[in-house]
């Protein structure tokens, strides 16, 4: 299952990573080298083996959905790139963006 340049471009789009052409080509080779080592797993007999879903012993405990949120040591405008009136500001959604890729 060799990774192609198209694959790298596709997963970069999914991961919201911009890549230069040189970097994308280099990543094709890097990912293929790494994934070649993974091929050994395909030879392991795993019929009937339940995949690990979580490693914790206790499952997922619940707690009462009550109480105030934790107070923050710093206001959000101390760490967010752009805010207004306690909200995070994002750039305007461009109409030319393709909703199919989301």
């Amino acid at each position, binding site marked *: 299952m060799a990774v192609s340049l198209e694959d790298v471009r596709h997963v970069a789009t999914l991961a919201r990573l911009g890549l230069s052409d040189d970097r994308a080509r280099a990543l094709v080779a890097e990912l293929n080298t790494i994934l070649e080592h*993974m091929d050994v797993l395909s030879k392991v007999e795993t019929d009937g083996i339940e995949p690990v879903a979580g490693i914790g012993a206790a499952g997922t405990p619940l707690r009462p959905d009550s109480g105030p949120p934790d107070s923050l*040591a710093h206001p959000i405008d101390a760490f*967010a790139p752009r805010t207004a009136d306690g909200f995070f500001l994002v750039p305007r959604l461009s109409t030319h963006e393709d909703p199919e890729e989301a």
Partner: protein
Amino acid sequence: MSNAADWSAAELRDAIARGELDPRDAARAALDRATAVGAGREGLNILLYQDDDCTERCRAVEYSVRDGTAGALAGVPVVVKDNIATTRLPTSCGSRILEGYVSPYAATAVARLEAAGAVVVAKSNMDEFAMGSSTENSAFGPARNPVAPDRVPGGSSGGSAAAVASGIVRIALGSETGGSVRQPAAFCGVVGVKPTYGRVSRYGLVAFASSLDQIGVFGRDVNDAATALRTIAGLDPRDSTSAADPVPDYPAAARGSLVGVVIGRPREYFPADLDPRIRTQCDRVLDAMRALGAEIRDVSLPHTGLAIQVYYIIAPAEASSNLARFDGVRYGLRIEGDGLRGMYEATRSRGFGPEVTRRILLGTYVLSAGYYDAYYRKAQQVRALIAGDFSKVFASGVHLLFTPTTPTPAFELGAKSDPYDMYLSDIFTCTANLAGVPAMSLPIGRVDGLPVGGQFIAPHFDERQMFVAAYALERVLGAEAHR
């Protein structure tokens, strides 16, 4: 009077609790030592941020001394890895994307250390987002090993290990996903503990691979590490994966004995091509434990050889999801681009370094349609087999396993340019993360002046048994194993 930076955590705490040492002087001694060893950017590059004004924290410690309520770490200076949230110093994960970010809340482990009186004096350098085994992947430049500055300190918690090894502090926090505490502990000649998954709250630990991540501790000696772990361990309502199991008094394990303890020697961790000098050191340790009354038993963990492959599918897959939150909206770097999507791509491309980018793409690939079953699902099945190996061997009456921590001592900076070659540094450590069991590395000697670590692995929530063995071994091996 000797330099306070040379005292053990317990000695420091007791002197401060008796009013014989001012906590400001203890913090100052740590920061003076940092200057003396060249811990900053131009030197070893092991500390990224220092708190030069701990006055407020030290005053709180003084009040506790006056009230007679001084905690187990009253006035003890500590260093915290840069991916664990602190509210006074930045938490940048060794990454440009979080450069200058100061968390609005503190990690539970940090809050517990501070509640016990510890004073956070610095944040330490690390591989970006904990992805690496040498601390060369930091956006703020590589760290160096204080024992041999031409060598790496290991990683990803290399800065914390080096801070303890160079005598700046006795205790530091690190984090583990595949060996990021134990491997640098081995390379720097200090004690490093990865607790059971769930033993320590992950609240405030910036997530890398959530099913593997766990905060760990470094100590100059076993007692420093035992004291630190006892302080931070235990249930936390803010982390639903933290466990309610009672936390034993780990320092009390110093009074334990190895008589009748069965220690397994897994053959897969002693391969034919293991560095013979490391094999010799391990054999010496096994002989010493036999002399202390332990039974040494040859055992097998047959799926060990698949662990690196499984780890490097699962960890990047989880990372690709966890790191989606770094998008220029809520915190950290923002680079404007064409619309919202352009901003995401510009921010993430500029903010993440090459290894983080590689792992996000690898993780996205193995989770994507058409490849999920072949890679991710398969890896989770083989992970079950690896975890089963440990369950079987512990169910057979083995109390502990002993292995080398790493296949080689610390390597030179720049020696491993192939990513997969670097991944192999975790070959003896990532199994414990995959199975969720506790493990620790302690110094067992040196080869050509470089520290060698020996590793104990225990059943879930039996850190106490590891500490019994580590205390006993430390007494026999003596101080030379630590220097």
